[in-house]
């Protein structure tokens, strides 16, 4: 039995059309594009998939927690439809514009409130900020060991065994539980829920906690300050390389690249 908590962040769809992406420079945040619903951060989906696979072999309970100012319940319900047992939303208008530390602190507080757990799973980084810090900070706050960028996660008998990605391969590390692991996409694509499961999950109750339920004062907590958020100007110059035939054009391209010392 491995009881798990999975932290999932709701983000702007990373595949939303670029033309819709806007930054509000004063508020220093990205504006959710109209007509493009938010999604679960992809690496967090992988973390959930890893949790479900562990539950399939070892048994246990999966609790999903998600934090944000306005959460889209239908997309978070998917986690119940694919195999999570409980969904707890940390939803409060005050839960906005946090740095990694504050986010980690709130999540850790919620985890403490949940109580018993063996393994916490997070995505290796959120697809909007790509900071990758919340997981390890949660572990620090809770005083448990953590392993990041896992490509494979196995848990059981009080231990968790992780294959951790490094630039030229992977390490195999084993640590005792309770522990925290952040997942990379190699652990597996999140399965689709069957229609039966979707219909059943739509009727399950969800718990919602606000700042006061957690007893936190988020505004006083930040450890880093966002100075500026902007979209860099991108300029691209495209030079078409011609030739009488396709082969000649190819040769001309090769020569040009050589001239520019690119090859």
């Amino acid at each position: 039995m491995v009881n798990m908590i999975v932290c999932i962040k709701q983000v702007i769809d990373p595949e939303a059309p670029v033309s819709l992406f806007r930054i509000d420079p004063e508020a220093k945040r990205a504006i959710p594009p109209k007509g493009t619903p938010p999604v679960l951060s992809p690496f967090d989906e992988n973390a959930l998939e890893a949790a479900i696979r562990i539950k399939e072999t070892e048994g246990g309970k999966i609790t999903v927690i998600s934090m944000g100012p306005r959460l889209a319940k239908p997309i978070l319900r998917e986690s119940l439809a694919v195999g999570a047992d409980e969904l707890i939303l940390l939803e409060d208008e005050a839960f906005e514009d946090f740095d990694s530390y504050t986010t980690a602190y709130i999540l850790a507080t919620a985890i403490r409130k949940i109580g018993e757990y063996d393994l916490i799973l997070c995505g290796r980084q959120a697809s909007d900020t790509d900071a990758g810090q919340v997981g390890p900070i949660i572990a620090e706050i809770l005083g448990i060991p953590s392993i990041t960028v896992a490509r494979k996660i196995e848990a059981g008998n009080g231990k968790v065994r992780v294959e951790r990605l490094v630039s030229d391969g992977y390490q195999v590390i084993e640590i005792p539980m309770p522990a925290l692991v952040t997942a990379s996409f190699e652990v597996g694509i999140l399965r689709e829920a069957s229609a039966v499961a979707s219909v059943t999950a739509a009727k399950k109750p969800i718990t919602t906690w606000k700042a006061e339920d957690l007893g936190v004062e988020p505004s006083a907590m930040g450890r880093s300050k966002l100075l500026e958020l902007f979209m860099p100007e991108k300029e691209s110059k495209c030079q078409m390389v011609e030739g009488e035939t396709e082969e000649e054009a190819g040769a001309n391209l090769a020569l040009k690249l050589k001239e520019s010392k690119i090859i």
Partner: protein
Amino acid sequence: MSPPSASYLGVPGYAIFWVLFAIAFGLFAHRVYLLIRLMLLGQKENRFDSIGYRIIYMLVATFGQWCNLKNVSRKDRAGIAHAFMFWGFGLFLIGYFIFIGVRGGFGFSTLFVDGSFEKVYFSILDIAGLFVVTALIWAAIRRYIIKPERLKGQITAEAGVILLLVFSLMVFHFCVEGFDYAARDASVSWPPIGGAFASFLVDRGIAQGTLESVFKGFWWLHYAIILSFLVFIPRSKHLHILASFPNVAFKSSSPKGALKPVDLEKPETFGASKIQDFSWKQLLDLYACTVCGRCHAICPAQLSGKPLSPRELILNLKEHLLEVGPELLKVRGEAEASSANPGKALIGEVVTEDEIWACTTCRACQEVCPAYNEHIDKIIDLRRNLAMVSMSETVRDPLKNLRVRGHPWRGTTLARTDWAEGLDIKTLAEYDDVDLLYWVGCTEALEDRSIKVAQAVAKLLKLAGVNFGILGDEEICCGDPARRMGGDHIFQLQAQTNIELLQSYNVKKIVTACPHCFNTLKNEYPQFGGEFEVIHHTQFIADLIKQGRLKLTTGLEQTITYHDACYLGRHNDIYETPREVVKGIPQAKMVEMERNRKGSFCCGGGGGRMWLEERIGKRISEMRIDQVIEVKAQIVATACPYCLQMFEDAIKAKAAQESLTVMDIAEIVEGSVVH
């Protein structure tokens, strides 16, 4: 005299008559009873609405033989032969009842003897017999000498037996007739053949007693063959004689393009993974199949080398039902009955996944089937099981994308309103006092080539002064791809969301340029309470031209062929209106492809196939472009964004861009109107 009234070696003829009848009828009824019980293993389905209309339609289609005559063309005139066989044999059946049954078995041995009714009726039978014999010979020549494509690979031995049986019945009819009249020493000129044969026999000077004996012999042989035929019918493909009548009567009364919804409230299982998951009507289809092969010969998947054959699908399901049905009947009523699944696996062994996913739902098979079989709903039920229960990987990603993003075009760099930039079109959120909603559709909003069609439509509407609006960002997929790929739960979510939105804006009238959106909004949304007046853009443009609000002035000196989109044509019977529009373009020369209107050849994009890879055989779209090139068209006009996409790619694949362009009708019209 009536042969049953005589005695044979002391045994009364009536005894022989009725014992034989009892045996034959018993064997017949026993088989039919089993078939009915097997059929009733299927799920409930309500096909009992409008009984009066159903009966009338059935009479016209079967007794009027419209079922076959609808398919008669220069290339396939077999329907005429069948009509002769049907009407001819029908007259014989009545004859059997009167002259063998009532006169013979029931003992009314003097009924109509030498009277005018007998003369008239036997004359009719003689002529009918000639027609039937001609039809049989024609059929035999077709089947065994000409060997048309659609008859290849059929159960030819069984077909041969049927032809022989019917042929022998005709021959025996003449023999019985001739010897009967000869034995009565009746010199008659009518019935023509019977009378002539009788005269021939009389002239031979054969003894009266001999004539009577031979007559009796032929009579009993004739009777025996009729009874053998009776026993053979439910054990062969001639079962269609019994099954096709109810099959036509119980055909779907829903709009052609509407699939029946899944009841999500009963989540034990969805779709079909076992033969008994189909409804009784779907199982009746299996009995009604005449094995004519028309569906097989017209199916674009089959013609392009995919393993799917509509005919084989039906026959394999029938074989499977007959194989495992008896075992299922044994456990009926017991606890495990609903999950019992003996024998081969329905999905995987009886029907393979490649077959299930190959279908484009073009409906060619159903339109051509003389037994009014409904192939598509079986494929969709198999898909529903794969998509909603087994979570098949084939459709996992397209379905997920539709669910998460509200459209199937993953990777698009366009937003829903990008196409409308600079065109000054209002969204309903900004201004909802419009007469008409232009439902853009996902493809025409989000796909680079197709946005030009949306722009053309919008420009035409503005030019004509139509007060219209769009949903803009609020528009999400109509849901058709999800439903056709089997993910009905996702479809229903889309439908309910859209209906709520449309009703919140009090939308009454919708025009759309996509036949799939058109079909779904018009024919399927009413299933969920969404009733709107939905018009296809070709219909709307045709109307605007008729009203003089759009004037086609600039000429287009090109040869144009119109490709009938499946969801506009076969699913919704709209064939002529788009053609009227094209014909109205000045200087344009219109040519028709061989496969047009009801016989049109699918582009390959329907049935969710737009989002699935085509890895087996040839590309359906390229086959159709070959047909376009064959008629030397310079422009192929389309009315559907999938057709547009498929043809753009196919033209490039064939490197035919220099000589052939694909354009939507809206684009053609836009190029011709005064601006």
